């Protein structure tokens, strides 16, 4: 059994990380499908699937709740479920769960600053993806949860997201300001007041008013957020959790994947498999028999040019893969060829799965 199939069988959580535009969603869906094929109840959490893949998974609408996928001819002993993350709804649920009362929840949900958070505060989507993962994991409804991470510029933003959000929610300046009764803090409050007046002047008073209302409504909830963030970090470091890095054999994609791998090295989490998607096949170098006395036939010249072109591409891609492999010693590498069409149905996922999980078909790259 291939390393990746083993993850689909043995782990409870698989996180697919990598730069945007490399086929991460497809890969996540294929891993969940493989889990289902091997008898598990699997759920894939997608972030922003291409429309046709979403359709294939029955995700026409944001449901934010897992939805059973009809596997049709691909049905096996297990089940495949899918959901498309709705950041705003997930955040709303988190607020309701942590609020001390309905009024507190309502005050936050109706606040203008809060309503902008899911769209405007960087890292929120990443945080909510982790939140959803934790929720699905702790409910115990699924044997396997596969998460597709958001296509951020830096694939690792979701690792930092909880901290970033907590920092935001613990804004020192606003917290001091909304506690006028604590006399000891008055002095600091004065400087801050002056600062806020300046902000009001430049960006408008509504910003300050909304922010004050938000942070005051949020009072007392940060511990709940903090505890949850800690539990999510524990889950990410759990032996039942596996990270799969998906990359493409391009310079930029490889650079991001390396950055991610370096970052993970400092934590308890480990990259278990590296998927290199969309590789061009290699057909070998120019035949030596033709090396010197190339016949002057335009037809043969075209054939040779083509082989040389493809050999150059393959050589460059192998260099990129080698650079990445060097940074991830001992991590199995799975190469998936460039498939001529985008994946948009279960058959397509199954086809990718043959590369991801099986020994690769003989006719192409070895």
């Amino acid at each position: 059994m291939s390393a990746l199939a083993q993850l689909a069988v043995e782990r409870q959580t698989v996180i697919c990380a990598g730069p945007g535009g490399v086929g991460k969603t497809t890969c996540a869906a294929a891993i969940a499908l493989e889990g289902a094929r091997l008898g598990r109840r699997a759920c894939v959490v997608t972030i922003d699937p291409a429309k046709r893949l979403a359709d294939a998974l029955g995700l026409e609408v944001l449901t934010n709740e897992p939805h059973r996928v009809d596997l049709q001819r691909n049905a096996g002993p297990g089940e495949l479920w899918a959901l498309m993350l709705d950041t705003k709804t997930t955040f709303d649920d988190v607020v309701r769960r942590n609020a001390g009362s309905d009024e507190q929840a309502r005050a936050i949900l109706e606040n203008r600053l809060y309503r902008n958070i899911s769209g405007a505060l960087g890292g929120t989507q990443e945080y909510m993806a982790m939140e959803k993962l934790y929720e699905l994991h702790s409910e115990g409804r699924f044997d396997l949860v596969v998460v597709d991470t958001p296509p951020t510029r830096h694939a690792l933003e979701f690792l930092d997201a909880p901290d970033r959000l907590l920092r935001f929610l613990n804004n020192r300046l606003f917290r001091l300001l909304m506690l006028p009764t604590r006399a000891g803090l008055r002095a600091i409050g004065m400087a801050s007041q002056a600062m806020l007046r300046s902000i009001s002047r430049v960006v408008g008073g509504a910003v300050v008013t909304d922010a004050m209302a938000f942070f005051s409504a949020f009072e007392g909830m940060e511990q709940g957020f903090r505890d949850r963030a800690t539990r999510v970090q524990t889950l990410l470091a759990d032996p039942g959790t596996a990270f799969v890095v998906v990359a493409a054999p391009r310079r930029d994609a490889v650079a991001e994947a390396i950055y991610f791998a370096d970052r993970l090295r400092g934590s308890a989490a480990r990259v278990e498999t590296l998927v290199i998607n969309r590789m061009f096949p290699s057909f070998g170098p120019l035949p030596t028999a033709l090396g010197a006395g190339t016949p002057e036939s335009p037809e043969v010249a075209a054939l040779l040019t083509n082989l040389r072109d493809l050999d150059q591409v393959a050589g460059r891609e192998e260099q990129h893969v080698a650079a990445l492999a060097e940074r991830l010693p001992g991590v199995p590498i799975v190469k998936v060829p460039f498939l001529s069409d985008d994946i948009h149905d279960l058959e397509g996922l199954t086809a990718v799965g043959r590369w991801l999980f099986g020994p690769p078909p003989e006719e192409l790259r070895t």
Partner: protein
Amino acid sequence: MDPKAFRPPARVMIVAGKGGVGKTTVSAALAYCAASAGLETLIVEAEGKSGLTALFDRREPLGYQELVLSEPGQAGPGSAGLRARTLTPDDALVEYLEDHGLRRISKRLSATGTLDVVATAIPGIKDILVLGKVKQLEALSASRADGAPEFIVVDAPAAGHAVSFLASPFGLLDAAAVGPIRTQAADVIALLSDPERCQVMLVTMPEETPVNEAADTAFHLEDRTGVKLAPIVVNGLWPHLDLPGDTGGALLRAGAALDDSDLAALDRAAEFRRQRQKLQDAQVARLADMLPLEQLKLPYLFTTELGRSEVVTLSASLVEQLVRLRP
């Protein structure tokens, strides 16, 4: 083709497209066209991080301070200088606050996370500030101020963000933001609405998802911003090869002998190329169907890494096609 034949379509060209389609490469090639034609040119890198300097065989990273990528005269006789700088949303926000009398406390604003609060309270503020800064550079250019760039290429944030980036001033005007921000938004809208001053050049690749996304982005930009779209760049087209249908026959006709495995490799490679050509022709046609924009086609380059000489090649191809399109 004489590089002097290049005429910039607008003073500011915003280059947009999804990650991995070669947005930065196209920005570099387009800027090189202008510099070769004798126009002082500036590339503004809105994402901060990019491989732009490597495209000019340089190793240093790009920063907030302008970096000369090509000296006057270096891109051919009579050529002008080509400079580049970053202009990230964070840069723009800090600069804006400093310009408005908050210099003294801008460090503290940042350290206390207050900037995050402001940026969250006013979604799009960072985008509008980046565009506001671009508008400032364009105004310098229009006034032909000393040392001002004559042509500005903006390497925009990756698509998905491109629409919200360019639509930000419209959203802010609707939200009735106050004071300086509102003025800023109105000024940027004036810039985006004038095709002599500013246009958007989309970049895509001849593959299914990039083509779909380019078409989506184009429609959203037209609906939400009204900015003029320049011809779309289809990047990474494999040059067409006239491959014989029968590999073995072609070798036989040429009197060449190969063993079976070499012959098979040659044959499979040819079949792969034919498939690839068919696929890209179909995607180019689909793009033309979906989007009534002229197409500029740039070849896939097989060299190991792109550098200055590849930028020169691509820019020559761009000039030739742009001149041909000119009415």
